[in-house]
C-alpha cells in the first residue's frame, strides 16, 4: 500500500490555493495506488487551516510550533521527512511554488529519495508510477521514473483541478522539536496588490518590451477585466515592473482562461510559461513576432491604441 503525503502551503494564516491543486493530484495518486492520503501543514497558529484542510477527506497532520512560525527549508524539512516515515508515505508531494521547490528536494534528501520537479501528470502502469514533467524550458516533455523506494515530487498547480470536499478527515497534532538552526528569518517584504495573483487569476494582461516601460494601458485593461498583470522577462529585467510579475519558465507558469500579451514578441521561455492558457490574444507591431504563431487571435498594431479601444468596447459591452 503506497501512502501519499501532501505538504500544504500556507502563508500568514491562509491556505494557498496551489495546495488544493496538489491535493487533487495526491487524491488521484492515492486512488491509483490504493494508499491513504495524508496532508501536513506546518506553522504557528494553524488550527483553522488544519480544520479547513480536513474537509477534503484526508488525514491532516498539524505541526504547530513557535519554531515553525517562519518557513525555512532547514526547519521544515526534518518535520516533513519524519512524518513521511511515520505514516509510511511512498509518495511525498507539494505544489511547485517557490515554497515547494525550496523545501521538497531537502525532504527528498532526508528520505534517500529522488525528486521530480513541476510534475504535469502521471504515467506508467498500475502500481508503477512514472512522472511527466517539462525539460528544456517546456520544449520537451519527459517521462521519468524515480529509482528510489520513496518518491518526492512537486506538482504544477495549473495541470490539476482543485480538490473537492469529500467528508471530514481527522486532524492529528505533530510533535515538533527543532534543533539550533543555521538559517535565520529576517523579514518578508510583501508586494501588495489589489489585483488577483497571477497563478490564480481568470484573466491576465501582460506587457513586454513594446510598452517601453509604460504599463498604464496594460493595467487599465487588466482592471477593466478584473485580471492580473503580467510581464515578460525583458520588462522585469529593465526594472519597469516588479519581479513577481514575470510570466515564463523562469517566472510564473500560468494557465488562465484569457491571456493578453501586449508588446511581447514571444521568447521561448515566456511562451513556456503561458502556452497552457485557454485563449491567447497577442497585440504587437511586428507581424513576424513569434507570439502570433500560438495566439488564438493576433492583432498587428500599436498597443497604445489597441488596448484603450478594446477596454472601451468591453466597458460599453457591460452596460
Amino acid at each position: 500500500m503506497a501512502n501519499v503525503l501532501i505538504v500544504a502551503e500556507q502563508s500568514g494564516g491562509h491556505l494557498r490555493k496551489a495546495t488544493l491543486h496538489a491535493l487533487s493530484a495526491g487524491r488521484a495518486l492515492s486512488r491509483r495506488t490504493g494508499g491513504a492520503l495524508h496532508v501536513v501543514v506546518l506553522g504557528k497558529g494553524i488550527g483553522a487551516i488544519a480544520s479547513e484542510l480536513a474537509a477534503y477527506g484526508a488525514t491532516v497532520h498539524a505541526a504547530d510550533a513557535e519554531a515553525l512560525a517562519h518557513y525555512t527549508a532547514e526547519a521544515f524539512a526534518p518535520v516533513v521527512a519524519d512524518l513521511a516515515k511515520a505514516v509510511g508515505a511512498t509518495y511525498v508531494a507539494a505544489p511547485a511554488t517557490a515554497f515547494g521547490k525550496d523545501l521538497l528536494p531537502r525532504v527528498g534528501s532526508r528520505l534517500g529519495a529522488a525528486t521530480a520537479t513541476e510534475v504535469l501528470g502521471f504515467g506508467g502502469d498500475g502500481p508503477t508510477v512514472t512522472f511527466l514533467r517539462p525539460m528544456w524550458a517546456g520544449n520537451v516533455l519527459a517521462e521519468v521514473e524515480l529509482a528510489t523506494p520513496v518518491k518526492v515530487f512537486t506538482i504544477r498547480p495549473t495541470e490539476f483541478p482543485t480538490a473537492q470536499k469529500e467528508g471530514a478527515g481527522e486532524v492529528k497534532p505533530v510533535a515538533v522539536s527543532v534543533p539550533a538552526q543555521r538559517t535565520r528569518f529576517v523579514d518578508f517584504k510583501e508586494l501588495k496588490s489589489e489585483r488577483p495573483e497571477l497563478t490564480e487569476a481568470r484573466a491576465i494582461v501582460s506587457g513586454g518590451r513594446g510598452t517601453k516601460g509604460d504599463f498604464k494601458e496594460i493595467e487599465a485593461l487588466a482592471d477593466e477585466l478584473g485580471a492580473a498583470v503580467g510581464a515578460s522577462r525583458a520588462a522585469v529585467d529593465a526594472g519597469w515592473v516588479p519581479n513577481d510579475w514575470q510570466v515564463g519558465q523562469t517566472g510564473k507558469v500560468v494557465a488562465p482562461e484569457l491571456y493578453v500579451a501586449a508588446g511581447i514578441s514571444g521568447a521561448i521561455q515566456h511562451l513556456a510559461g503561458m502556452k497552457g492558457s485557454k485563449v491567447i490574444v497577442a497585440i504587437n507591431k511586428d507581424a513576424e513576432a513569434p507570439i502570433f504563431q500560438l495566439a488564438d487571435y493576433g492583432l498587428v498594431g500599436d498597443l497604445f491604441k489597441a488596448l484603450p479601444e478594446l477596454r472601451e468596447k468591453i466597458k460599453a459591452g457591460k452596460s
Partner: protein
Amino acid sequence: MPLKILVTAKRVEDPESKIKVKPDGSGIVTDGVNYKMNPFDEIAVEEGLRLKEKHGGEVVVASIGGDKSVTEIRAALAMGADRGVLVRHDGPLDPVVVAGILAKVFEREKPDLVLLGKQSIDDDQNQVGQYLADRLALAQGTFASKAESLESEAEQKKQPGLVLSADGKELRVVREVDGGLETLDLTLPAVVTCDLRLNKPRFASLPGIMKAKKKPVEEIPAAALGADLAPKVVVKKLSEPPKRQGGVKVADVAELYGKLKNEAKVL
C-alpha cells in the same frame, strides 16, 4: 574576511538553440546544437567574483561531465575565477548524483560558500543546491535575488547582492519567492542558489581569456571521489509537447472584441 567560494558551471545546450526530440524518444538531437555554461551558473560565477572583489579570497569553479565540460570551466576562469575542478563522469547526471559528487568536492575544498544556479536549463529540476545543503547539514538560500533592479546604480557598480556580516560569519540573502522578497541570514558555510535578477554576468575580456588558459584545472574521475553514481532519476522517454493551433490574425480591435465575446466567450 576573505571568502573561499565554490561555484558550479554546468555545460548545457545553448538556450538559443532549437531543441528537438529524437524520433525514438531516447534523447534530443544534438546535431547543430551549441553548448555553453548554464545561464544561472553564470550568475553564480559573477556573484562569486563580486564577493571576492569586495572581501578577497578565492573562487573555485567545478563542473561535472566529459572532456568538453572543461570549456565551461575555462569560460568561468576567463571571467575571473581562480582555478577549476573537473569531475569526469560520462554517465547521466541527475540532481541526487550531482549533489553527491559536489558534497565530495566540498569536503576536499572546504569552502565558506557554495554558489550554484537555481536550476540548469536542460533538465530544469531546481534541486541540486537543496540536496547539497541537506547532505552537508548547511543552511540553504535558494532563488537569491536583490531588492534593486538590474538597471540600478548598485548593479552598475557591480555590488554583490549577497551581503557578508561584519564578523564574516553570516551571509544575508534576499530570496525571490511568491508574493514578495524574503530575507534570510545564513550561518557560513552555506549553500546559495542564484536567480535571474541577482546580477548581470560580465563578459570575459580578451586578457581574461588569455589568462584563463594558464589557470590550473584539476581533473578527478568521479569514481575516485567515492560518491554514489547510480542514477536515481531515470528518463524513460522524451516527447514533444502538444502544439497549440494558433496563427489566426484579426483585422482590428472591433473584430478582436467580437471574437473574444462571441467565439471564445471569455468576456
